[in-house]
């Protein structure tokens, strides 16, 4: 249980830091990648919470497909903030 706690805290801190980074980082493309990373970390947390179905779905939809969507949007708008 201690191991789980440590894992969850480590993942959580990483995610929160990454989330702030996604919002303040200069380049939009980095932000998109970081958000994808946060989603992937979230699927780890889902696994920790005994939710394998959700973890699979989050990994394939939240992390992969959302990222493609955002990349497309970035390509169409172009430029940075």
């Amino acid at each position: 249980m201690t191991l789980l706690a440590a894992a969850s805290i480590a993942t959580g801190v990483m995610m929160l830091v990454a989330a702030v980074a996604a919002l303040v980082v200069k380049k939009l493309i980095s932000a998109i990648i970081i958000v994808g990373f946060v989603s992937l970390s979230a699927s780890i947390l889902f696994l920790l919470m005994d939710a394998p179905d959700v973890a699979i779905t989050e990994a394939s939809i939240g992390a992969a497909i959302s990222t493609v969507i955002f990349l497309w949007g970035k390509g169409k708008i172009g430029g940075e903030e």
Partner: protein
Amino acid sequence: MIRTIVGLIIVLALSVVVISSVPDYSLPSGLQGVGQDYTERGVNDTGSVNLVTAVVVAYRGLDTLGEVVVLFSASTAVVLVLTLVPMGANPTPSSSIVAFTSGVLPGSIVLFGIYIITHGHLSPGGGFPGGAVVASAFLLVMLGSNKIPGKSKLLASIESLAGVTFGLLGFWGMMMFGQFLNNMVLPAGSPGKLFSAGIIPLISLVIGAKVASELSGVFSSYRKAGGDE
């Protein structure tokens, strides 16, 4: 700058609201309410070993139907908007590595996706993640080919057929049991087998097909509008 600070204040106040509303900080002792019921009678009611699938497809099938409609509306809207607005940009030709990979991989990815879809009532998975996996295979194919795919009749047909099937299954349940989307119109079979759990595998398949075709539709219209990476 002012906006940043005001936003910070709002968010902090919000956190105070949420935290002060938590009644106590002890661990819950056990399941309560319907969660307990599902774990006790889920397998008997539906024949599905995976209780999440049992809830998604059987107990709260209406939510799932609604969710399919959400995806359906979104993909229809995206396709509609993007076809109405010419964006003008041509997709960049893909490199040979991508082209090679996209020739080889999709077949196995699709197989994997179908496995996830069809074993949804037995193991983690089901229509949504499986459909997404299949869609990602389609995405790969699209990235690899240099042609702009035309409006895929096949996609539209699968999408529509899956949707209509879902609806008709609902009406079937209505006719048999007076309950829309009742899953027990086919025998429950023995839990743990592939052909069990009533029409749950069938609905999973329908959901998978629908999710896959709709996501693919979105990608394909993105691709047509150009500018993807």
